[in-house]
């Protein structure tokens, strides 16, 4: 489906090839539902049967986490929330949590951002205000509290260990002919890419331009040095929104949430919209 576009450039592969680059057990960083989620790639990952992922929502996740959890791909969920917003409950997340199907690392949004920034800066930790007194802290033995060394009096502060994912995964409107990816003002994508060993990106299209050619376009660009592979996936965020380019497929997401109430319903959803997809191509 996607291989025909941009084949000239040697960094472009198919969505299935990207999925094959994600090993079992990988720590993957993903953006929130409104920021450009690589849903087509997510479906390809489920088809390939990836296992034991450590999923980091930067700072939250939604339908992508739901599908991966429901399909049994996930061993650890680290996020500040899993939510389908107004479109229903994240049943597979809730059910998996109750069954202890994965390890849950509840976080708070700025802590995930700070830990990802620490990963991108190659520093072992980042301090952050707040959090003290919250039960989150009790359940995150990896977070430490020290006394602020710059304060004269007692001044406890939380230190967050850096997050350095193996792979950042997201979807963007376009990449240029050199593999630079347009990310606009979604700088959480830049932070994820910097922190991660590599980024796998799907795009609506490859444009025959050079994003680095002007100050204007370079400002919204993730430079190709961070990218491990790009695949063209038109409407690749479906049924989620892609920025202001296309909206949520609300009926579909409601249908998902309805079907996902039971494991059987979820399995039928996968059959209809994930596994069958391959045959249709």
């Amino acid at each position, binding site marked *: 489906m996607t291989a025909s576009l941009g084949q000239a450039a040697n960094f472009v592969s198919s969505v299935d090839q990207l999925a094959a680059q994600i090993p079992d057990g990988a720590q993957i960083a993903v953006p929130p539902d409104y920021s450009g989620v690589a849903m087509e790639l997510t479906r390809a990952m489920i088809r390939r049967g990836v296992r034991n992922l450590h999923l980091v929502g930067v700072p*939250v996740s939604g339908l992508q986490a739901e599908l991966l959890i429901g399909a049994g791909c996930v061993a650890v969920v680290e996020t500040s929330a899993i939510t389908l917003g107004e479109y229903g409950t994240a049943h597979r*997340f809730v059910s998996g949590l109750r069954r202890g199907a994965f390890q849950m690392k509840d976080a708070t949004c700025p802590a995930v951002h700070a830990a990802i920034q620490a990963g991108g800066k190659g520093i072992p930790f980042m301090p952050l205000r*707040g959090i003290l*007194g919250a039960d989150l802290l009790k359940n995150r033995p990896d977070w430490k509290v020290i006394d602020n060394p710059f304060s004269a009096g007692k*001044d*406890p502060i939380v230190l967050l260990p850096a997050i350095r994912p193996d792979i950042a995964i997201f979807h963007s409107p376009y990449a240029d002919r050199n593999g630079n990816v347009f990310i606009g003002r979604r*700088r959480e994508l830049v932070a994820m890419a910097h922190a991660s060993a590599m980024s796998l990106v799907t795009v609506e299209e490859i444009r025959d331009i050079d994003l680095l050619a002007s100050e204007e376009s370079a400002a919204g660009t993730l430079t190709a040095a961070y990218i491990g592979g790009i695949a063209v996936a038109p409407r690749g965020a479906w049924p989620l929104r892609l920025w202001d380019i296309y909206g949520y497929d609300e009926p579909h997401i409601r249908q998902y949430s309805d079907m996902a109430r039971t494991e059987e319903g979820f399995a039928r959803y996968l059959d209809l919209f994930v596994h069958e997809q391959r045959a249709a191509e």
Partner: protein
Amino acid sequence: MQDSVPFSRQELLISVIARLLTGCRIVATGASSPIPGAGALLARAQSGGRLRVNVLGSVRNDFLCDGGVELFDLAAQGRLDAFFLGGGQIDGAANINLVGAGGTYPQTDVRWPGSFGSAYLYYLVPRVILFREEHTRRVMVPKVDFISAAGPRNDGTYRPGGPIGLLTNLCWFSFDRSRLRFRLESVHPGHTVEEVRDHTGFDFDCPETVPMTLPPDTDTLALLRTRIARELAETYPRFVAQVFPEAQVPETLSAAD
């Protein structure tokens, strides 16, 4: 009440929120928050342009350009004056729970999405308005099952921010930072102190006479039903269609004409 124009429950809440935001420079509202969003937009309209509002999920009312982290950095810089937090549970010490209830964490009987930014913004934003429409003993509990973000504790922890109060369908409580307790400030028109007591699981201070919550005046309602409804519709079309059914009509008409 000199104003005879009838108003809805939502309009009352929006107008209360706008008053609570008086004097702010920057206010932000989070996901799925049409009433706080409308309150902030109303406060902006009434501020003569001095107030900046960031509505999460909006394109037109989003002045941030530095990614998801910028709102949190703004808060730590001391630039974000007000924010809204809710909770699956809220207790009398202003602890809030956005994670889950019953059972043993993480295998709670009920699970909500998660803490989002609460465990941070609650500590740093000077005017956090706790907002939860449902006012029942299920929500307003003696003690939350999980603390997503802790109420102020006056224990010397760095904490420039915290709750100024709790707004519900029934009333407005202020939060007393010295006594670390809620205080019933006003009861919404059509409700009573007894009703508030009956539906609140935690203890709170209550003066002998509790005034009625000030309803929105005619000008405010007019502004709300026209400009604010239209501004809000970009982000919350279904809410606007339901709460301000007439606001949308002129737009649709003018588009059709």
